[in-house]
């Protein structure tokens, strides 16, 4: 448990640096707002449209496939940690597990989902 105190310290320090920086900047800067400061970037170039753009639809299917294989990783991890005490049978089980999921990847490949048109 005590090793997580270090993690907690990192989280607190990370949040603290950002908060202190914003607070100091607010204390130090002069207060002079005008509309040009609110545009997305000040590069002497007027931006076209909003900064909330619609992203390409194709990202979504990759994200979906990623979630599936992320769950697979969760199952791989205890297997890998316990593998030294398990032997060949566990290897066969995991090969079956991965082969079944590989079929899904091949399905996606054959359907042309992985292709970035």
């Amino acid at each position, binding site marked *: *448990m*005590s090793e*997580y105190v270090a*993690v*907690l310290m990192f989280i607190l320090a990370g949040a603290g640096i950002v908060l202190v920086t914003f607070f100091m900047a607010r204390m130090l800067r002069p207060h002079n707002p005008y509309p040009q400061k609110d545009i997305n970037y000040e590069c002497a170039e007027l931006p076209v449209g*909003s900064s*909330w753009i*619609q*992203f*390409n*639809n194709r*990202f*979504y*299917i990759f*994200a*979906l*496939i*990623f*979630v*599936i294989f*992320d*769950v*697979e*990783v*969760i*199952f791989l*991890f*205890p*297997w*890998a*940690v*316990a*593998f030294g*005490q*398990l032997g060949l*049978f*566990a290897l066969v*089980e995991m090969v*079956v*597990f*991965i082969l*079944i*999921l590989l*079929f*899904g*990847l091949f*399905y*996606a490949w054959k*359907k042309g*989902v992985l292709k970035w048109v």
Partner: protein
Amino acid sequence: MTESADIGIVFWVLSFVILVSAFMVVSLKNIFHCALFLIMCLFSVAGIFVLLDAEFLAAAQVLIYVGAVAILMIFAIMLTSNLASRKIRQVNENVSVGVFVSVLFALASIILIAQTHIWHYKTDFTPVENSIVILGKYLMIQYVLPFEVVSILLLASLIGAIVLARKERS
């Protein structure tokens, strides 16, 4: 018992963060900010898991819920046209029913918790060392069939996701 007192403080802070961020999720007007607060809420839940010495569960929580599911939600928001910048109305239309159900649920929880011995739970309880090894052994020996069925389930959801997402595109 100073250590347990410290853990108690961390627990209350985490619970406070979870409740506040969960309230933000259901009350903010920008759905993108709701998704960000959902990430904060799920991450704090991972912190609770760490407090309970369930490190694997905490890692799984961060990896799957924060790393994948919440990102998928943010993707879905960013991919839907103009949804991110639109102000949405988050008002419960059935306040009376909602309050009734909440009070009922809270009462049921309090009654159930009062019946257990959770408040005088032994604090000198020592968690199992190397619980991941034990988990892996159970997964490989005792629960082989559910383990393999999980891969079938994942395959089904993968194919289902592909079929749905492709139909939507064309």
